[in-house]
């Protein structure tokens, strides 16, 4: 994923489900194929963001679990119905 634009989202200190909501809203602004890196401190995000991606058709490229931070990298899938 070397020459793709990498978008960043910082949701540190935000608790579930806010990291998911912010990811969802950010993804809505991005085009299919773009890559987003989400940095969180709520360890729940490690389950929730990938689950949200699977449900809504986005690809999880990587998840990293550090001591204090969790990083989820995803590739935006096909646009969803306008709800």
């Amino acid at each position, binding site marked *: 994923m070397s020459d793709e634009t990498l978008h960043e989202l910082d949701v540190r*200190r935000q*608790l*579930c*489900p*806010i990291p*998911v*909501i912010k990811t*969802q809203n950010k993804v809505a602004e991005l085009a299919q194929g773009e890559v987003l890196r989400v940095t969180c401190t*709520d*360890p*729940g995000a*490690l*389950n*929730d963001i990938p*689950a*949200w991606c*699977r*449900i*809504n058709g986005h690809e999880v490229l990587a998840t990293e679990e550090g001591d204090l931070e969790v990083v989820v990298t995803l590739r935006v899938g096909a646009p*969803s*119905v*306008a*709800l």
Partner: protein
Amino acid sequence: MSEAVAPVTRPSADPLQRRAIALVSGGLDSMLAVKVMQEQGIHVEGVNFFTGFCVEGHTHAIRKKDKDKNKRNNALWVAEELGIKLHIIDISEEYKDVVLNPKHGYGAHLNPCLDCKIFMVNQATLMLNKARELAGEKGFDFIITGEVVGQRPKSQRKETMPIISSESGADDRLLRPLSALNLPETLPEREGWVDRSRLHDFSGRNRKPQIELARRFGLEDYAQPSGGCCFLTDESYSRKLADLWQARNERRYELDDIMLLKVGRHIRPQPHLKLIISREEGENRFLEGYRYQFTSLTTVSCPGPLALVDGRFESEAELEQAAAIVARYSKGRGDESVTVEVKDPGGVAREVRVAPARPDDIPKNWLVA
């Protein structure tokens, strides 16, 4: 219709397939409501509303002792189980008016369940209308909830069901698959989009029919309904919220306020002063994040909790009183004196040396719980 085409291979773009928005809380009832619709070939997508009071992951993420629990968002998990899309909507700002001024009043605690339901169904109705505007027939046709007549004393009585339908603006586009046979026919039933005879007549607080239906659908792992959907049904939480309003002389809150009510030990030694004291490491880390917004206290001569000060010290004596309380919950509680660091939100710190409070220095009624 020919049976030759297996329903699974029919894409959801099938022009004949009707589409429903489901209110998904993460509990069993909404899960079953979706299943009942899917069984009838309806395409379902879920919405879940974040009010700020949701019991979800938050506390699990904060408290270390819950570390082993599977930290998952129930609504997301349910959506994945059901194979539906889920839109999580942050309504925490608009929701304040529901909590502060519920037209239909509160339940047993500060839970404005009836107004809450009306609000949520109304939000779903607005989404439905917008989707219809944008996508016409490819939008959504109706809304479903997992409501069951008579299940909740306030919001789910037989008389309140039509109130929710009409005041939300959803009218007869709102279908409750689990209780439909106890209620008047709705649009999807009249139009034949769903077969009324295959809907249910659940009512009352008995959960047996739900558990039986879950078994029939092969659902085994689901959130137990005991917890309720939000902290507003919790007695201790509601008391903390009421205390906050009383201390501030006004009924208002910010998202941070209601988050902080979910963690720590809350002690009010003065009408204008409350201490939020962490009970373990996870809470400690959570409260750390608020040190730039609140004055904080922590013991330095021995390991101890972190405490945030909600309010302002009006004298040195008040500051020392607070420090003594914090010292009481530190490892140095048996020592003659303990050094406590007091840091203001700007990061300016100083130290005070105090004798830890003894148990009877902290009267029971200071504890907000």
